[in-house]
């Protein structure tokens, strides 16, 4: 029996963060693609139906909040869950993320176990990995 793997888009301008999140999520069985800023993520989401977005906040060209707003807008209109991960821990950041349309906001550093657990939780029912 072949199952469709759960597709995740990792969105971060830092190549090391993309590599880290991609390797953790790939090992856990997710099919991961990467985008280096918010606008690239929007373009990727126009051509591929992702099951989860993992989005940084501070990125050039299009920041994380605007990215999530655009993913939720009619430009893309994805219903897929969005996890925002930020280095920022300012008052109001989480509220801003939720207002933009994120499902969960976390502050770095996020442990490997927690990232995988949250990714599984957010994508439960979307095929493997269960």
């Amino acid at each position, binding site marked *: 029996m072949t199952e469709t793997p759960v597709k995740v888009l990792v969105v971060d301008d830092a190549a090391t963060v993309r590599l880290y999140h991609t390797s953790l999520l790939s090992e856990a069985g997710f099919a991961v693609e990467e985008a280096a800023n918010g606008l690239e993520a929007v*373009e990727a989401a126009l051509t591929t139906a992702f099951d989860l977005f993992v989005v940084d906040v501070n990125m050039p060209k299009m920041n994380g909040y605007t990215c999530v707003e655009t993913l939720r807008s009619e430009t893309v209109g994805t219903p897929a869950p969005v996890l925002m991960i930020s280095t920022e821990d300012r008052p109001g950041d989480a509220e801003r993320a939720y207002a933009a349309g994120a499902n969960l906001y976390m502050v770095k550093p996020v442990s490997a176990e927690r990232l995988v657990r949250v990714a599984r939780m957010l994508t439960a029912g979307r095929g493997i990995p269960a």
Partner: protein
Amino acid sequence: MTSAATAGAGLSEADFEKFREYFYKRTGIQFAPSKRYFVDKRIDTCIKNSEFDTFTTWFAALRLSARDDLLQELINQLTVNETYFLREDYQFDSMLRTVLPDVVEARGGANRIVGPIKILSLPCSTGEEPYSIALRLLEEWDLIDRLDVEIHGADIDSSVLDRARHASYGERSLQRVPKKWRDKYFSPVGGGRYQLDEGIRGAVTLHQVNVTDTLAMRAFRDFDVIFCRNVLIYFDELSSRRAAENLYGAMRPGAYLFLGHSESMSRISPIFTPTRLPEGIVYQRPTGANR
């Protein structure tokens, strides 16, 4: 292919990855790993043409000093910059099937549209692109007899514009033009060259302009469709931003912008809205005040 054959510039895997990431960040062009041999050879040529001896010193100068000449040479080496009729034709398919019908509808429909539909080819080089647009509209767009269409070509280089005005082309340029169209719109002028019909030549307006010059670009207004293919990658960060902003100013709200097939606005400017068409991604000037 053997590992000896891929040695080329003597790039290690890590160097190649660093280069790939840099070039992508700078130009939006991503090389498949299968292009490794090609890329290695072209980098080798760039290093040989520079005053540097090694990849490391050349790459450091490329990245850390404002050496536009090094980048220009690199892009010239790594991009195929030839122009011919009906190049990247799938974008003209997009224009005919999706973009123009949407433009007509957004402007009130074929019976109520006021003013011409305006299409800009920038850079137009020796004219193949604006004339290809003209041919495809005349041959394939059912509304061409009911609506006015203005086609404009613009380029910074006056010598290519002179050749565009003359509009005579060799076999290589015309290889993709169907024989029927060639017989109908071109006449042999000797030396294996064919000149485009005067009616079409006369219908396309040509301009000399630098796309990064905001003042000069003010003359370009209310375009419905712009083709700006394979030029923004040549500019540095600030110039490409200014060029994108000038193009935005030349477009009607809701108008469409086509970039080259390996190019993306995502490394240049967020002011456009990417839109997916069956043939690929195209950019629109947002219609509302918000983007």
